[in-house]
């Protein structure tokens, strides 16, 4: 992590490149970063100078970060302490005016900082939200005596755009899982008049957040989004489509357990519950920890954490072809109901047979017992 003293030594209105220079990032490193980000955003290489120029001259945008019902995993992902990366520096070089997990200030001073930042940058600041918003009562998530929903509505009013970091803010996530005791909802159910980018994942890939920020700084506009409000460039393809184990799926070679020969050979994890075929994210391409690996690379199936309702879609270890119904009692009751209906139908038929026999209609009189 960057020493706190260094971080504080950068003036809040300093251009980004100056801030990076203080951290020891060379111009060459900066240009390499611009090329990487341009490539990640699937932009033409001709735009690299434009990205670099925009970032060099960019004033650090004011960012207000509101964490609500969350586990801090998203913050941990972005500010991860494993290595100091240029993406991390970019992220820390924004003017993060309010983030109650990271900031030193607390109580009234912290809330005052938020109010000041909002007033100073009204209509221009970026609002980042992680965590879902409870509607079940103010007591579930209250900050400085105000409900999460109140704070969100107030902060959203002056925001240029809202970036929902993590599946909780984007889709409700684990707090909204059945039976959803706090009546948690995603940001998009409360704020409907502002552009919203959903960067889903539990947690999301930090580079994706960086790339969205760079896109905003460079072009002043949000990236192209999919039907769930996620940047298409990162969420346009399923993990399965880009998985290095895909050839094994095509051949029907599956690991049957986590320690069998198939698992050791790196075969497809479909039978072990991998949700890669229905999960859209960049894990298989961008990967984690500086491009080191991703869950499937580590031998565990994808749990589909970038998709809405992933927590309520049956067992993580149930294959997609397995239905998540195990109601044997209901099935047994159904069988009992079937016997009753069948017996009733037979009874009716018997009556008809009797009537027919009595009338001698079917010529079978006397044959019935």
């Amino acid at each position, binding site marked *: 992590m960057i020493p706190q003293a260094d971080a504080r030594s950068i003036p809040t209105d300093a251009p980004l490149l100056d801030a990076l220079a203080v951290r020891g990032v060379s111009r060459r490193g900066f240009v390499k970063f611009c090329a990487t980000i341009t490539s990640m955003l699937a932009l033409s290489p001709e735009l690299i100078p434009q990205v670099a120029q925009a970032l060099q001259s960019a004033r650090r945008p004011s960012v207000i970060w509101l964490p609500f019902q969350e586990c801090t995993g998203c913050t941990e992902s972005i500010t991860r302490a494993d290595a100091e990366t240029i993406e991390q520096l970019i992220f820390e070089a924004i003017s993060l005016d309010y983030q109650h997990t990271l900031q030193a200030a607390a109580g009234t001073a912290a809330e005052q900082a938020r109010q000041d930042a909002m007033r100073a940058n009204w209509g221009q600041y970026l609002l980042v939200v992680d965590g879902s918003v409870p509607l079940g009562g103010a007591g579930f998530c209250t900050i400085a005596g105000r409900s999460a929903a109140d704070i969100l509505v107030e902060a959203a009013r002056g925001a240029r755009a809202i970036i929902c970091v993590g599946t909780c803010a984007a889709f409700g996530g684990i707090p909204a899982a059945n039976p959803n005791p706090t009546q948690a909802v995603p940001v998009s159910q409360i704020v409907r008049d502002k552009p919203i980018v959903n960067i889903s994942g539990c947690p999301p890939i930090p580079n994706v957040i960086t790339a969205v920020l760079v896109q905003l700084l460079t072009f002043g506009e949000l990236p192209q989004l999919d039907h769930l409000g996620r940047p298409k460039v990162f969420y346009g393809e399923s993990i399965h489509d880009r998985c290095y184990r895909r050839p094994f799926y095509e051949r029907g070679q599956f690991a049957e357990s986590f320690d069998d020969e198939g698992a050791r050979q790196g075969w497809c994890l479909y039978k072990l519950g991998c949700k890669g075929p229905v999960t859209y994210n960049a894990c298989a391409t961008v990967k984690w920890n500086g491009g080191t690996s991703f869950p499937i690379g580590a031998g565990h199936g994808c749990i589909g954490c970038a998709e809405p309702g992933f927590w309520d879609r049956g067992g993580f270890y149930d294959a997609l072809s397995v239905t998540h*119904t195990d109601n044997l009692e209901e099935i047994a009751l159904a069988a009992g*109901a079937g016997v009753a209906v069948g017996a009733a139908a037979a009874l009716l038929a*018997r009556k008809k047979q009797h009537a027919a026999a009595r009338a001698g209609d079917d010529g079978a009189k006397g*044959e019935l017992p």
Partner: protein
Amino acid sequence: MTLLDFARGPGFFWAFTILIVGIVWRLSGLVFFRWRRELATPREPGLVAPVSGGLRTVIMRSVPPHELEKNITFQHFTGYAWHIGWFVTFLFLGAHQPLIRSILHFGWPNLPNGVVLVITAMTLGILLTLYVRRLLHPVLRLITDMDDHVSVLLTIAPLVTGVAAFAHWSLFGLRYETVLAIHLLSVEALMIWLPFGKIFHFVTGLITRFRLGAEMMRRGVRA
């Protein structure tokens, strides 16, 4: 709830429930139905004759009768071919194994996907050929009713949607999860229809053949 969540959850539950209710309903109806009393003395006492007669009929009705062999060979053997292909696809595709295992609590090795895919394609081709033939053949057309159309189409649908899901074809621009959901729903539609249409021969076919053979043998007739 997404379409896939519905297909994997409540959709499958209700389809399975209706399947069970339907099968038990129709079977118990047959069991509780008043059976004709046999007044004639059996030709041969004991159980050996009716059982052997029943088994004989099951076997004999499973091969084309000699007199009609020339006329029905194509339909007969293509019928076998697609039935076998359909069940090989269902029972031996790797992606189906977890479902089978979750229901039966045991399973078996799957065949290579390439093998199953070839069998599936052949099955689909035969089924479509037979259906087109049914539509064009003047006699078959006469004896075809709505039950046949529904039964055939519901048998074909899981194969078509299954191949699309397996190959990740985006039918009409649909995403994979929607195609997979449609595949599951097509299977669920088949499950719901099974007890009420002609596909119920899946349950009663061998039983009725056996009973007919046993009854005929009791009367000294080879059926």
